[in-house]
């Protein structure tokens, strides 16, 4: 995820302090991984240096001074460009699972058992996500669905591979 672009986009509705930005980010996108303050301030320094945000005001308090950031026109253009650019689809060609299956076959280990154990682990996680989704709001549901569809794709691959294991064994041992 591009934290810089996301924080920039959050500034489009109006200037905010770094702490408000972190809270807004965590509420919408930080489900499993909230931002560290350090990340926010480092990112804002970079955006400031690149002219994508500017300091809108500074408040003096008991603690350190608090800067309020505002997005610049260049920042708005940068967000628009980021959104318009399609993400590169993952090629998924470097699969650890495929490597493990081949290694198991090459070394005479139980590839069937490996696939079963992996399948059980995938389903365990799918159950956990399904429970979270069932009790969650729409954001939770969409985030969990994204993960569930990817896990399901893995599972379908595990099933296909289990069905073709004899064929693969012959191929890797020849």
């Amino acid at each position, binding site marked *: 995820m591009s934290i810089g672009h996301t924080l920039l986009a959050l500034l489009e509705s109006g200037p905010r302090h770094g702490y408000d930005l972190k809270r807004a980010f965590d509420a919408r996108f930080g489900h499993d991984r909230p931002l560290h303050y350090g990340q926010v301030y480092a990112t804002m320094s970079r955006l400031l240096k690149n002219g994508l945000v500017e300091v809108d005001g500074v408040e003096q308090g008991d603690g350190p001074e608090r800067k309020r950031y505002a997005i610049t026109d260049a920042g708005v253009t940068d967000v628009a460009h980021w959104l318009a650019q399609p993400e590169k689809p993952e090629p998924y060609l470097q699969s650890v699972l495929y490597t493990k299956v081949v290694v198991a076959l090459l070394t005479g280990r139980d590839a069937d*058992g*490996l696939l*079963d154990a992996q399948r059980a682990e995938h*389903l365990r996680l799918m*159950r956990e996500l399904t429970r979270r989704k069932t009790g969650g709001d729409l954001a939770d549901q969409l985030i969990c669905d994204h993960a569930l*569809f990817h896990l399901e794709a893995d599972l379908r691959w595990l099933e296909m591979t289990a069905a073709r294991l004899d064929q693969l064994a012959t191929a890797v041992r020849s």
Partner: protein
Amino acid sequence: MTPAPSGSLLAATGLRKAYGPTTALDGADFSVHPGEIVAVMGPSGSGKSTLLHCLAGIIRPDAGSVRYGARKLSELSDAERSALRRGEFGFVFQFGQLVPELTCVENVALPLRLGGVRRKEAEQQAMRWLERLEVAGVRGKRPGEVSGGQGQRVAVARALVTTPRVIFADEPTGALDSLNGERVMELLTEAARDTRAAVVLVTHEARVAAYSDREVVVRDGRARDMAGARL
């Protein structure tokens, strides 16, 4: 053959079933506890539906036994097995299999009517389930006049109306789109948990199986409990 786990509500041991030269089940064991949702998965033709039909007493296995509580299904008469299926088991299939001539509320009330409940009382109970399944609005419509998703919810309501102790669901979302399928699964599993019904859920979709507590995989006519799948 392994002995059935203690405390199980429904358990099968060493089930064998062949259709002519084709072996569908080859020594399958299975068990489900009260309130437990078990997904039965496996490739097409692996014997999943045959296992479900044997467990529900719809077909007789060639060998092996199915025990429901303290009773062996093979020792029950046809009439006793029918009574069991009507009163203690509920069924949901891929296609609702509703009676086309009856309205939706009459369809849901049907298992109660067959059990001798008076029409008014049966339809009141049916309405409660239609409401719970979020399809109260189709009460007076016939199955041909409702959408696939609504029809399947009506079928789920019909399966639940007798408060069965075991619900057999064979690809219950197979004919539905993802959103409708998920809602049907949420409503079905929520109702099953509330009533402590056991669910035997045959599916080839992992996202549907993820609503279960555990899964068994049927391969080559044998059922394997994936909770024990470890290297």
